[in-house]
C-alpha cells in the first residue's frame, strides 16, 4: 500500500492506494500523523477510491485520525468509498460521524 499526500488550502488530501490491513495500517498512520504535525493542516480528506481491499483495521486508522482532527477543531471527510468498504465502516457506526462523498472535490466543497 502507498499513500499520496497533497494540500489544498488547510485541507490535507490523502489518497490511499492498495490493500489496507493491520500490516499496512501502521505505515499509513505514521505517514498521516507526520504530515499533520509538520503542516498547518486543519482538515483531512481520505480518498479510498484506489483501495482494493480493507478489513476492520481501516476503521481504527480512520477513527484515530478523526480524533486527532477533532482536537484541532478541524473537519474530516471520506471520498471514493465503495460499497464493500462502506459496509465495514457502517458496522462500526463510523459513517454517522464522518461524511463520505463520491469525489475529493465534492468532499472539499461540502465538508
Amino acid at each position, binding site marked *: 500500500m502507498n499513500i499520496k499526500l497533497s494540500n489544498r488550502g488547510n485541507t490535507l488530501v490523502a489518497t490511499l492506494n492498495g490493500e489496507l490491513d*493491520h500490516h499496512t495500517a501502521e505505515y499509513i498512520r505514521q505517514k498521516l500523523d507526520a504530515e499533520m504535525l509538520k503542516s498547518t493542516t486543519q482538515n483531512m480528506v481520505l480518498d479510498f477510491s484506489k483501495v482494493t481491499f*480493507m*478489513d*476492520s483495521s481501516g476503521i481504527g486508522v480512520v477513527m484515530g485520525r478523526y480524533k486527532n482532527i477533532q482536537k484541532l477543531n478541524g473537519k474530516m471527510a471520506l471520498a471514493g468509498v465503495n460499497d464493500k468498504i462502506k459496509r465495514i465502516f457502517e458496522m*462500526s457506526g463510523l459513517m454517522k460521524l464522518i461524511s463520505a462523498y463520491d469525489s475529493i472535490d465534492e468532499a472539499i466543497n461540502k465538508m
Partner: protein
Amino acid sequence: MNPINEVKLEFVSKSCNEAFARVVAAAFVSQIDPNIEELADVKTAVSEAVTNAIIHGYENEKGLVKMVCKLYEDAVEISVSDEGKGIEDIEKAREPMYTSRPDMERSGMGFTVMESFMDRVEVASEVGKGTTVTMFKTFKSVRGKNDAPKQ
C-alpha cells in the same frame, strides 16, 4: 458431508502474512467458482482471523498460525488457529466494539466482520493454549451450478 478438497497451511505470525493467507484462501476457494463478492467476503474474514491470531494470540511475538480450508461442492470451512495466550472470555471478545488493545487503535470489530461476512463463526479457546476460529460459508452463486453429472 465430506470435503472435495482440503489444504493446510502453516506460517510465521508476521503481519505481512495476513495478505498471503487471505490470497491463498481466495485462490483455493475459487476452484468452485464463487462470485467476486463472495470471494471478497472470504478474504476479509480470513484477514480478520489471521490478524487476531497475530495481534492477540501471539501479541506480536513469534509463533505459528495454522489455516485449514475444507472445500465442499458449494461451501467452504476455514479454520485459523494459534497456540498463543487464548481468550479468557469468548463472549466478551465477540462483542462489537470490544477490544483488549485500544492502544493499537484496534476497533474491536474483527469478530463482527467475520460473523457478517461468513454464515457461521465458531470460537474455541483455552487460556495459555491457544485459539481456533472456524468459519463456514455457503456460496449461493455456486449452489446447483456444480450439480452436472460427473464423467
